[in-house]
């Protein structure tokens, strides 16, 4: 059975109208007056080939507008149109990496709840192997040194988005090796990288440890004990503190943070019944958590994030797929048949090979993006199958999902084209109706930038966000993209 929040409430004996009888947290969660606004950002490391998102109908529409993309992979070099080319009902599923949008296997079709944007630039971010946090902050941000906050944190900080959820954002991902936390993609602010949890077990323990039956439960309990110990220490320190009031305030601020964290733990415990209903498989129950295949681990992370959204743990999710200059070189054993002669090659080498035109590796990269998009589609379908409690429509209608790369269009990116796939969000104003929009190329007055898409997300979140990032005088124009929102 597909679990829904509505069926959960029904199970508990409440209809939607009975939400007022719930405890304070559930009231806040389910009876909020605000429109639910959720944001999910999938970020693929080291480039998305624009052709992977290009449908046949869009190719024809571009021809009519004077652009013949021919056979080249890096489309922007051939863009010669002067205005955005909008192709309604662009048949997205026939693009190389978008087949999973179709209903071929009897699933819900997402073609008319998606949209593709091509031609957006983000030169400020620098390109290369990875722009690190620059991709989501429209800034030049080398590894370990975010220049500013990223869009996910901006959105997560808005009360119109968070609406009382215990976690302002959930950031999950996969990388090669044993790296548990990836600091390459998100940032709270200048020099404040925000970690992405790369170990699915750690993520599970943090989000669902309170209702886990295995090691997750002990991890959750140990964190509580750690917090309790620190609270006791701070209370003791404040009792004996001899400094002035300004210095005392530093300790009080820390204590307040600890107490808020304890409170979050309590909220999560209060959500026990709800979380039990949405909890994904536990680490001990699923091989996905420990799989050698990054696609399996990613599946576990996506399932976890979906459950977190449906369970009301958060309204902002980032899923990072091998992002950051140190982390994109993944191997894909589950795609071994696509490697020439079945010989696995390191991700970096494979991408180099594709860059130099080796078609086998070009197909491999297409397949990788295809599998990632399929996982995003699986999340979208779960959300589409889950009705909102306090608003009309489904959760997908109130959730905009974005798929983008962390450096632009290719392995050694020039950051001149950033292919984007959007799903859902129709109730938030997004024209995700199957269209494709192709903007004029970088350098043209009518080119638009990734920061404009972030402006669009900001507006959808209820904020008047017309500027974002560090483009300064290289900013072409401010504000949201009318071709996709409004």
């Amino acid at each position, binding site marked *: 059975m597909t679990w829904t929040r509505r069926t959960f409430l029904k199970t508990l004996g409440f209809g939607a109208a009975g939400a007022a009888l719930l405890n304070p947290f559930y009231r806040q969660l389910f009876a909020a007056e605000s429109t639910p606004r959720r944001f999910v950002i999938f970020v693929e490391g080291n480039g998305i080939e624009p052709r992977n998102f290009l449908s046949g109908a869009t190719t024809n529409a571009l021809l009519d507008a004077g652009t013949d993309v021919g056979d080249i992979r890096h489309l922007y070099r051939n863009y010669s149109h002067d205005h955005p080319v909008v192709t309604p009902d662009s048949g997205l599923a026939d693009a190389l990496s978008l087949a999973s949008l179709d209903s071929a296997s009897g699933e819900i079709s997402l073609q008319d709840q998606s949209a593709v944007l091509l031609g957006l630039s983000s030169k400020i971010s620098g390109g290369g192997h990875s722009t690190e946090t620059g991709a989501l902050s429209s800034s030049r941000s080398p590894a370990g040194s975010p220049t500013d906050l990223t869009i996910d944190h901006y959105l997560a900080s808005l009360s119109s988005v968070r609406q009382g959820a215990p976690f302002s954002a959930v950031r999950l991902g996969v990388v090669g090796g044993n790296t548990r936390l990836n600091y390459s993609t998100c940032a709270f*602010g200048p020099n404040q*990288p925000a970690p992405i*949890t790369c170990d699915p077990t750690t993520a599970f323990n943090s989000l669902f440890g309170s209702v886990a039956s295995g090691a997750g439960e002990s991890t959750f309990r140990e964190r509580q004990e750690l917090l309790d110990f620190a609270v006791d*220490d701070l209370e003791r320190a404040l009792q004996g503190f001899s400094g002035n009031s300004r*210095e005392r305030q530093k300790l009080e601020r820390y204590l307040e*943070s600890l107490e808020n964290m304890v409170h979050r733990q309590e909220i999560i415990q209060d959500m026990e019944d709800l979380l039990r209903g949405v909890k994904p498989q536990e680490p001990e129950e699923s091989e996905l958590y420990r799989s050698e295949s990054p696609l399996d681990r990613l599946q576990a992370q996506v399932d976890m994030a979906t459950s977190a959204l449906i369970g009301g743990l958060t309204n902002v999710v980032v899923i990072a797929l091998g992002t950051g200059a140190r982390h994109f070189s993944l191997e894909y054993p589950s795609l071994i048949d696509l490697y020439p002669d079945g010989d696995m090659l390191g991700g970096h080498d494979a991408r180099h090979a594709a860059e130099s035109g080796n078609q086998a590796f070009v197909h491999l990269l297409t397949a990788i993006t295809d599998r990632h998009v399929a996982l995003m589609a699986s999340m979208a379908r779960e959300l589409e199958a889950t009705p909102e409690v306090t608003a009309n429509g489904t959760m997908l209608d109130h959730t905009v999902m974005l798929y983008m790369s962390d450096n632009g269009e290719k392995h050694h990116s020039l950051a001149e084209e950033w292919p984007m796939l959007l799903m859902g969000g129709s109730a938030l104003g997004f024209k995700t109706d199957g269209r494709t929009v192709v903007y004029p190329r970088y350098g043209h007055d009518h080119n638009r930038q990734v920061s404009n898409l972030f402006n669009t997300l900001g507006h959808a979140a209820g904020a008047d966000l*017309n500027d974002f990032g560090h483009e300064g005088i*290289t900013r072409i124009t401010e504000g949201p993209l009318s071709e996709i929102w409004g």
Partner: protein
Amino acid sequence: MSRVLLSFVFCFALMACTDDGDQANQTDPENLGEPNTGEPNQVPGENDSEPQEPSGNELDQGLLFMCMDDEVAFTEGRIRRIGRSEWTRNVGRYAGSAADQNPFDGLPTHPYSTYAENESVNESVLDIYLDSVASGSYGWATRDRYRAGALASNVHEDSIACMYGESRPDEECVEHYTAYLLERGVLFRPPTDEEHQALREFAENVLDSEGTEEDARRHSLERIFSAAWMTSGALFREELGEGPVDDYGRRRLGDWELANAIAYALDGRAAGAPGVYARWGLEWSADYDGHMPGLREAAMDGTISNPETIATLVREYFGGVDEDRVDLNLDFRDERRISRRGEFWLANGVREFFREWLGYDAHINIFKDTPSATSAFGSEVHSDYGNLISGYYGHESRLVEQMDDMIARVVVEDIDVYENLLTTRTFYVPATAEFEGSSIHNSTLRTSYIYNVTDPVASTREDRWRVLPESERAGVLTHPAFLASHAGAFENDPNIVDRGKWVRENLLCDPVPDLPITVEAAFDPETRDQSARQRMSEQVDTRAECAGCHGMMNPLGYPFEIYNHAGFLREEDHGSPPDGSAYLRSMPDPELDGPIEDAIDLSERLAESAYARRCFLRQVFRYFMGRDEVLRDACTLEAMEQAYVDSGGSLVEVLIALFQSDSFQFRVDEVAR
């Protein structure tokens, strides 16, 4: 007129010419009335509206170096939240490791990372810290002396071995281990009874609930380490003063407070912070007694209160020459990067001071369009330029490290440091010769071109040290790392303003009013094909309403127009020869007034300016004191200047004077505002 009154008159004059318009940042959720967690460390609110004591560039420099007999110096008692690198070093982990991703960066609004005001631990910081605190535990959760990351103060201490066996440690063992961990691995001072008791009880509970899985003990030790590093004593270092109050209401820092204050200022880590076994083939970063063991011993036996002890230890730990550069063992994972660095080393705090004062690592965050524009080179150097910033290909140093090495040489030589910083022609350039014909030659063969060094540079320290032509470079202000850090994306951006403002504020300690909110400061985009000099002189200099502020900056920025935005020497400038000429008027130091030929001429003139040298000393004070200077610090600043002059320009002696001063050593509860 009294000194205090004089300073207020100065402040009012400043306010009159400053349009106090904070630039609204539209990306800041706070502007939307939403909670802002974008600045994670700040204590909110109350300090913002408090009247502040005049300090820093607000003050008249002449008064700041005029010590009065009845002047009493002190600093307000404070607690200082640990910094990001400090935490990494104290737990014995590597730069760039997971532990180094801890969330303890300083507030970006602080002029130096050592400033402690308003810094605490808010929820965003705590959220990250909870996920990462255990990442620092390796050296205390394990005890394998031959594994990278082992700590000398752990593996060479037999009395704590009982915690690492298979059996349940007894009470005596737990009591001893927790005391040892707190003193040698967390607090870097003896714990109080309460601190020890609390951790001991926590440790007992952890051990009681320990499982039977293979790594159960290691997990228990991680939990104990994490708990210890969650405490206020671990994250906040006290400088409140101890002992009796003197006639002026002051307390002298306690021995441990003083030893650690010096240790953190000098080396960015605690006194006795653990030595680490980095990896096979490298030496331990320090032995059993840890880093700066003399400071720890002096705290234990009380000799830290002796000025001569301080002088001796500062001279020992300040910097020096080391062919092996052991100081870098925890900074780089690949020793080939260490062997390619210069042989002069500086303590972390000293190195960081220069990075922060000169701001020369900022260029790594600044996009450079066509780095070679207007230089003698073309696009063939662009990949090399990218590699100078990232260091991705090969193992040569990056631009920022080349400037570190150049500065280290001047500072370690310790003669006329200020003057030589501004005039040295000895630059450390990257080697290129070995990359001829290599697979990465596109990104490595021309990395030295940015210094106009086009002959092959051999992979030896001797050949990397190059004396550049007198007509091309002179000191830190002409180093490519500095030039690129104080410039925008394009060669004809208003880099004149960036660089001139920096000189005005950081070498002349003269404040430039904030940009009025009503002014959209940008060149006309239709003039993109003009030189920056033409754009500035025609669009800004001719407008009377701009002259007030730009007159303070532009004449100090024009001289740098002989270089482009990336730090290359210009060969031409939009069809004309490069022009760095300027005329300085009404400078804070009248000796500087007059025509200037270019940045080299300006650097040499600044080097001769005793006024600018005082500003340098004020910057030293700020970084190593962790706060702005105020009028009551005049005797300290005067002593620092005297030490500099008497010693023939020694920065070591300047720091000794500062660490021995009342400003550094005495605290009062609260300064009246």
